């Protein structure tokens, strides 16, 4: 193991409170709502999610269909965001393309969190050879460049939304595992865990019911950050043409229209703004959560 101490999104060592007391989650939520940037992020995110869920119903234009003359600029016809080089509606692409991006982003983040917490929890809780082994595995995945690993896996196992999500998850769980391990290790030494053990609670119970709730705050922050990373990943893969070819996605739009950027900026710029805003929303939420869980940091 390297001697480099792990920096986590929430500088470790501040969540020491035993579970009873006042609900720390409720407290954090109040803190979060007082953070203007974070609330803006949340509102933005809700808007984007609504757009991708309801949008396709309200705007049922086929994103692959050729609806108008190619290269129609925005605001000139009923297709307000213009059309691309094939005459495909850019707005339809943005509305429908978000579904794939968000679905992949969210499920990849869930996969990375579940995998990371499982591995980190066992390593941190049991220590010893379990820890040593699991940390070797983590380290192994850490030296493989994630996008490259995802590209390789997708090539070998066909690009469908499921494999893409699984692949991105598999390529980005190591940070979570390290964080979870550190938290479990620290909490394992705490009074309340020893107390639970003294009451002969099972290991599974201690991990799941006693430690995990207390380890949640930094993991939630990490989940938010990972969602942003996963969205950027998905966009990058479909930009390269390695996305699911049957679904429209923002990255694909950028990659496909790049050839015509000198004359038509909109099919490249607009989906890019969509990705940008989505990741920005996620980052703002993540930041807000981080601050909310770490009142000490907020004064900065």
């Amino acid at each position, binding site marked *: 193991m390297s001697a480099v101490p792990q920096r986590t999104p929430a500088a470790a060592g501040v969540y020491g409170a035993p579970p009873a007391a006042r609900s720390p989650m409720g407290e954090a939520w109040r803190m979060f709502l007082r953070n203007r940037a974070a609330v803006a992020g949340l509102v933005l995110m809700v808007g984007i999610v609504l757009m991708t869920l309801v949008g396709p119903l309200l705007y049922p234009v086929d994103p692959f269909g*050729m609806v108008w*003359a190619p290269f129609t600029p925005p605001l000139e016809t009923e297709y307000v965001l213009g059309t691309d080089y*094939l005459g495909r509606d850019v707005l339809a692409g943005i509305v429908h393309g978000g579904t794939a991006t968000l679905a992949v982003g969210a499920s990849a983040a869930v996969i990375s969190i579940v995998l990371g917490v499982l591995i980190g929890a066992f390593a941190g809780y049991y220590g010893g050879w379990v820890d040593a082994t699991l940390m070797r595995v983590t380290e192994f995945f850490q030296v493989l460049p994630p996008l490259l690993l995802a590209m390789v896996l997708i090539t070998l196992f066909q690009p469908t939304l499921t494999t893409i999500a699984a692949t991105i998850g598999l390529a980005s769980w190591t940070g979570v595992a390290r964080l979870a391990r550190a938290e479990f290790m620290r909490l394992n030494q705490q009074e309340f865990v020893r107390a639970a053990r003294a009451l002969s609670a099972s290991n599974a119970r201690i991990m799941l019911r006693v430690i995990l709730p207390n380890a949640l705050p930094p993991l939630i922050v990490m989940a938010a950050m990972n969602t942003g990373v996963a969205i950027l990943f998905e966009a990058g893969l479909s930009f390269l043409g390695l996305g699911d070819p049957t679904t429209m996605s923002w990255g694909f739009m950028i990659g496909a229209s790049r*050839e015509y950027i*000198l*004359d038509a900026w909109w099919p490249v710029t607009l989906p890019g703004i969509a990705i940008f805003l989505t990741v920005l929303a996620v980052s703002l939420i993540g930041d807000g959560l981080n601050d909310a869980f770490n009142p000490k940091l907020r004064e900065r």
Partner: protein
Amino acid sequence: MFREFTKLLCGAAVATVIVAGAALAEPTRGGSIVWPVASAPRHFNSAVQSGIATAMPAAQIFASPLRFDADWKPQPYLAEKWEMAPDGLSVTLTLVDGAKFHDGKPVTSEDVAFSVMAVKENHPFKSMLEPVTGVDTPDPRTAIVRLAHPHPAILLAMSPALMPILPKHVYGDGQDLKSHPANLKPVGSGPFKFEEYREGEYITLVRNDDFFIKDRPYLDRIVMRIIPDGPNRTIAMERHEGHVMPFEERIRDINRMKRQDGLVVTDQGYAGIGPINWLAFNLERPPFDNKKVRQAIGYAIDKEFVTKALMEGVGVRALGPIAPGSPFSPKDVEPYKLDLDKANRLLDEAGFPRKADGTRFTMNVDYIPGFALLKTMAEYMKPQLAKVGIKAEPRPSPDFPTWASRVSNHDFDATMDVVFNWGDPVIGVHRTYLSSNIRKGVIWSNTQSYSNPRVDELLAAAGKEQDEAKRKALYDEFQKIVVDDAPILFIAVSPYHTVFDKRLANLPTTIWGTASPLDETYWAQKP
């Protein structure tokens, strides 16, 4: 066209300077040009590989017996004299004195004999030298090409892009020419010597100081930079980081460059090329072995939309295998008028009813990378063919060799391709349809595996027919059959343009354009 050649068959022609539109001042020596190209060549041996990616550098590296001017007239090159026998059964070439290969060895009739036979045996255009039975070499400067029967296209086949004279002492060592190591380290006798090829980056050619035409070439160096992204090529030209950009078909960028002061845009230099964009099927693979399926796709494609909208109105519809502009090109009657009902009906009849999800079958559509129009058309198939229940997915290739390997090994469903007529149908057209030219591994052979005995007969007859009217009748029947059989759906003529730096003079705007040597090009004004 045949008559045009016969008029010129006797006697030596006087060398004429091919003038490119720009200044006529005294040419000056020196300087380099950067030549942006979209895709990398597989290698540089144009005796075994066709296509412009190879032809452009190969025409600089290798000299050929003849070259052509803008009026289809043959001009002396390695051969200072050529003479067609009265019976049309032989051509006698007299080589220039003192021509040397880049390694210093002299060019002799032995090399010509070797090269002619190498092209005959290996080139994908099988019908191009089909009638050649052998080459006699009575002395080092005389080569007599023997023909089994009169061959209207023999002189055109001696052009730079089609008949590179290879040094026998390098390529004649018995190794397979298609994978000869010297294909990547070529030795020729042309105006420029091969210097370096960095895969995915650039090809550099340097001046051949021993070139057999005195004082030429004028340029010291040609750098062909491989720039796969269209906008990056355009920007490079606009910023004068690139100086010659031929075979450009991205209409919006062409129009943009036309408005630039420092650039000249021309559509000259493609007369011999005769480029057609088409969709070719792999007839070995079901369901494309079924004529009705192919015809249905023909009826489903909206040719009007392609030429008007996708090609910004400059598209010219290609109605058959022979490109417009040729005396043999088909009559102006649309054979596959857009008709989705008919397409649906044909597909039902062919035994591919719509499944529960509304689709009939899935197919891949390949396309040559670096050709924006081909990519656009391949992508166009997806929404368009969806209308008749076919799921068409474009399959990208990273570079030309990848695409070439897939298609030439018959590993494809259908591909968007751009194929050239190369002046005379015998050279550029027959190869695609002759059943004897189904040759795995050779790109731009009959990769469709199309086979129709009547077509074989018609082409054999047309190839040696000396009467132009009779020849046209043969080609008419041939085209009618091919259009109906639909191994290929012909779509449009490629709107090729060359963009060059205004300060350059004497760009080749002959029938072969930049697929012929740039030995006369020079900087009229130093960059």
